């Protein structure tokens, strides 16, 4: 399991690369260097988490379901937003739990009732239309209208795929992935972005 040293390591590597670019590329301004350092932290952090979760699911022999759940997450979360964690460790644990819950639900549950799913998707469209995208406590979101349109397009794509596919595991995976995202969207909009930190503190106080 990664610990605080891993976070420090990601920051150190990002700073090291940024300093190297600053020395060898005179055209970069201070703001450019801050942007580069932030991007490096994001890329290295997410890559580390992805590799850890990928290896976990490789050991469980459930890579196809993990990859589908990951694609759904990547195509919905950046558009509608979601709950954030304070630390690298709590983020990693949340992410592992997210994929494990989807894996268990997808493999153990029978195919859901079609009418129930239709109602779910109608409610999802209404929720997306009303609340997406939710606020981010760490930075401002400027292009809310575009994100709302893109999130609705993304939801339409997964809705079509859900009713086209015959495989129960894949359908369950799509259903629960979307349900988790929509639940987060509702929670954040009901209680505000401050609650994200509170939720994280409640669940992961032992990791801080």
């Amino acid at each position, binding site marked *: 399991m990664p610990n605080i040293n891993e976070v420090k390591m990601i920051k150190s590597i990002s700073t090291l690369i940024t300093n190297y670019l600053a020395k060898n590329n005179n055209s970069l301004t201070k703001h450019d260097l801050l942007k*580069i*350092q932030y991007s490096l932290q994001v890329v290295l952090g997410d890559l580390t988490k992805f590799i850890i979760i990928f290896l976990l699911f490789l050991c469980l022999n459930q890579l196809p379901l993990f990859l589908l759940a990951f694609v759904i997450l990547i195509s919905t979360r950046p558009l509608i937003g979601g709950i954030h964690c304070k630390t690298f460790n709590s983020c990693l644990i949340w992410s592992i739990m997210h994929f494990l819950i989807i894996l268990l639900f997808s493999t153990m549950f029978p195919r859901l009732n079609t009418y129930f799913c239709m109602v779910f998707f109608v409610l999802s469209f209404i929720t997306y239309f009303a609340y997406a995208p939710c606020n981010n406590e760490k930075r401002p979101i*400027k292009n809310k209208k575009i994100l709302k349109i893109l999130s609705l397009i993304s939801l339409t794509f997964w809705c079509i795929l859900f009713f086209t596919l015959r495989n129960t595991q894949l359908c369950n995976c799509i259903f629960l992935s979307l349900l988790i995202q929509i639940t987060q969207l509702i929670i954040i909009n009901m209680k505000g972005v401050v609650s994200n930190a509170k939720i994280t503190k409640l669940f992961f106080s032992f990791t801080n």
Partner: protein
Amino acid sequence: MQKSLNFFSALLINIFKLISNTSCLGLYGEPDYPKELLK
């Protein structure tokens, strides 16, 4: 070498622009946004 560094710098700045245009990142967390860029 200089061209590669310019390309890499431009790539990372473009990644930043992409991230800034999203509501949040793929997984359940993201590093602290630089305060200087919020001004």
